[in-house]
């Protein structure tokens, strides 16, 4: 029987990382729960064994159900019937399979019916699901919303909503975007008013591009404070679909992830519950939700990249031209090997980032129960700081890379890949959204550049450097040279105190840091398992030249040339006016 967990030994490798010991201990609170729950782990080894066994179930469902359904789901897609979204048949079957296996609400505490899993195994599951069907990964991945209710909802709300995930298999949606509030969520207009008579909040207005918009439970960002226009007037609400007060007006026609319904919703005096405090909707709760979602897109991107790579490899092994399998041509095997080493690098960064988020979240959660020791508090802050810059880093890096990998995979398929006959045509389309939603690459850069300007990336690079053994001296030396280049050139840009110039180069700077970090992670992987020796060597060599190019570009860039790049606004306005008159 095929199994996406068993055919990817990297998952087990990353579960065995020394840092996981800390995560499990925090998450399981010294394994106290095994006294009350017959399915709670008894010790660290038991927990790791359990993660593996549960991921094996996910891997089997991915290989045996979700992946075989992906093609029909892409063709059939969802539709609206009597104001309700009806999924493609395959989507319903996929969700049922995961629900039947108890895999909804994996991260929730046992008290609410969850498995109390850390993010690490959950993100691994998300990667596999995305490899099987990237569009479906969204529907399943929106169980993240449960985490947000857990983190910020009242105890009453937790008890009311959370058990429904694992027990009833409810679906969820994060309802943020509006026609005029995309990247700029501060502009959200959907109105929330408190009905004094009924003592209930009511929502009115339109939301657009809402993934899985007709979910059972929705988290809605709405303007609760009259006469405000910025982020501070926004609050977060829970809307329960059983109120039947939202019209699903339209489903978008899309390039990819066609199985995942993208809805336009009209809230018509819809009853809703406030989550947490008023005015904290965007600045705190949505930010937290978005961070989970960004990690989710990172996982989705790695899953897509892996799917694309496997398709390319399979095709190259079977396709013969000029009397030999195309796998044997340097132009083809270069592409294949570059895909493979990039996936190794991305996966390492993904699980490194996940570990940082896991530790900071586990401490935050522990704070609800007890006062943290000062050492724990500083550790929490440290990991939070890392998570804040690594999350946008993995989101942008993995999403951009999965597009490139899907592109190369299709290229290896040649003309056949352009036709709908092979899965790569779908994978290529599905990949495209990853660098756009949950914050575009350009927005991720704005968050990740802080890792450059505050020195967090450099500090962490130094930590990795100190962990590299002498056996990897050659690669270490290369990475040290890259680090010096990175340090020099980022200092040069920052010292100019020219914000537009920093913005202009920020993606290059973040990518330079990312390359060094992934290079070190592969070298460190290699210290634990020599199967990474090839990836470590080839990857470091590859990104060294990439960083050199970026370095040269930035070093030779004259700040005044920025002016030449500017596109004048006036011209755009004139055109708009003309169109309106016409």
């Amino acid at each position, binding site marked *: 029987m095929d199994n996406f967990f068993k055919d990817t030994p990297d998952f087990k490798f990353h579960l065995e990382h020394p840092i996981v010991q800390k995560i499990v201990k925090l998450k399981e609170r010294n394994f106290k729960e095994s006294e009350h729950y*017959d*399915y*709670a*782990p*008894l010790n660290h080894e038991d927990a790791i*064994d*359990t993660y593996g*066994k*549960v991921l094996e*179930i996910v891997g*089997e*469902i991915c290989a045996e159900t979700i992946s075989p359904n992906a093609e029909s789901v892409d063709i059939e897609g969802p539709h609206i019937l009597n104001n309700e979204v009806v999924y493609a048949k395959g989507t319903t079957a996929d969700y049922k*399979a995961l629900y*039947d*296996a*108890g*895999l909804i609400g*994996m991260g929730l505490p046992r008290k609410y019916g969850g*498995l109390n899993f850390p993010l690490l195994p959950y993100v691994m599951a998300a990667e596999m699901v995305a490899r099987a069907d990237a569009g479906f990964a969204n529907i399943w991945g929106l169980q993240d919303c449960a985490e947000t209710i857990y983190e910020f909802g009242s105890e009453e709300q937790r008890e009311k909503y959370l058990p429904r995930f694992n027990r009833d298999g409810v679906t969820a949606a994060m309802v943020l975007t509006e026609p005029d509030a995309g990247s700029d969520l501060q502009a959200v207009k959907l109105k929330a008013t408190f009905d004094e008579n009924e003592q209930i909040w009511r929502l009115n207005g339109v939301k657009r591009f809402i993934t899985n918009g007709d979910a059972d439970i929705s988290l809605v960002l709405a303007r609760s404070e009259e006469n405000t226009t910025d982020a501070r007037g926004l609050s977060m609400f829970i809307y329960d679909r059983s109120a039947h007060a939202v019209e699903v007006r339209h489903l978008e026609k899309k390039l990819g992830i066609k199985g995942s319904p993208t809805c336009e919703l009209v809230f018509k005096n819809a009853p809703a519950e406030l989550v947490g405090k008023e005015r904290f909707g965007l600045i705190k709760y949505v930010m937290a939700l978005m961070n989970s979602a960004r990690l989710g897109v990172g996982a989705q991107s790695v899953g897509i990249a892996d799917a694309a790579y496997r398709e390319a490899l399979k095709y190259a092994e079977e396709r013969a031209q000029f009397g030999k399998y195309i796998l044997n041509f340097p132009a083809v095997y270069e592409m294949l090997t570059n895909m493979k080493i990039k996936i190794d690098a991305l996966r390492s960064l993904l699980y490194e980032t996940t570990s940082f988020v896991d530790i900071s979240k586990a401490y935050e959660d522990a704070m609800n129960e007890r006062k943290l020791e000062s050492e724990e508090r500083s550790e929490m802050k440290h990991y939070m700081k890392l998570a804040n810059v690594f999350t946008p880093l993995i989101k942008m890096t993995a999403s951009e890379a999965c597009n490139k990998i899907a592109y190369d995979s299709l290229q290896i398929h040649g003309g056949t890949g352009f036709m709908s006959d092979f899965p790569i045509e779908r994978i290529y389309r599905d990949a495209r959204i990853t660098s756009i939603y949950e914050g575009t690459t350009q927005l991720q850069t704005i968050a990740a550049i802080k890792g450059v300007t505050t020195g967090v990336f450099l500090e962490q690079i130094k930590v990795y450097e100190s962990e590299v053994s002498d056996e990897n001296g050659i690669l270490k030396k290369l990475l040290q040279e890259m680090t010096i280049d990175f340090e020099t050139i980022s200092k040069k840009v920052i010292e100019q105190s020219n914000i537009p110039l920093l913005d202009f180069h920020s993606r290059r700077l973040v990518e330079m840091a990312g390359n060094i970090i992934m290079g070190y992670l592969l070298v460190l992987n290699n210290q634990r398992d020599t199967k990474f020796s090839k990836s470590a060597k080839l990857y470091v060599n590859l990104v060294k030249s990439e960083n050199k190019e970026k370095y040269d570009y930035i070093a030779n860039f004259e700040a005044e040339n920025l002016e030449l790049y500017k596109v004048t606004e006036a011209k755009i306005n004139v055109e708009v006016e003309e169109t309106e008159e016409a």
Partner: protein
Amino acid sequence: MRPLKIIVLAKQVPDTRHVGPDAMKPDGTVNRGKLSTVFNPDDLHALELALNIKDRVPGTTVTILTMGPQKAADIIREGYYRGVDNGIMISDRRFGGADTLATSYTLVQGIKKLAPYDLILGGRQAIDGDTAQVGPQCADKLQIPQVTYVEEILEINDTEIIARRRLEKGVETVSAPYPCLMTVHGSSPKCRSRHAKSVMKYKYARSKTELRSANEMLLSLHEKRQYLTIPEWSVEDIEADVTKIGLAGSPTKVKSVESIVLTAGEAKILTSSDTDIEGMIRELIEHHTIG
């Protein structure tokens, strides 16, 4: 509808889909040590059918019964992971070498110990022997009705159970009173996956024999959670007649095994029409098979 008591018969078999070069011994018998084992595929279909009835009829219990060596405890654990209520092993060296007759006798002795029951389900056949005899033999020995090749349960009520059978050239709908035995066809729905929480709950389930080599942690856990100990029935436990079990109770003797390479092309299906019969006779004469 009253709850039912279902017994699922399941067998651990060599994984014939992953056969290596040394899967057979030179004498033509199966080299069991070299083959990994799996839950017999048709029995997984039977398990799904049982769990499906459990979903439909609240309060229904499913007990999985297997006969086999120590390793067959995997079958019981797999059953627990997918939702059975109880698991029992029939395991004793003296049961070894059983053919279908001895196997069905042994299983029936176990089933009698589990009585009363409403329904016994098993796969149509096991992939190692492909006899499809054990199910029907059990029904015969228990003197209860049998329905073979079941694909779907169409209706369950207090007095009878209505099933659709998948036959070579069509389907047949039949009803049977309780208790009865059904063998399940591979065209029925495939078995549900393991359930995450059940895996966590039962992953330390061990048979008594397995516990003999267990560590402290496992032993104390079994003391606290007694449901983790898988009952293991011996010859005495099921009051079996030693002349009817194992090798002694098996009239089937394998004389020799030959390795045959199939060379025939596609099969031809002939109808009873005169043209087809004429054509066949002509062909047979041409090939000098007859005449």
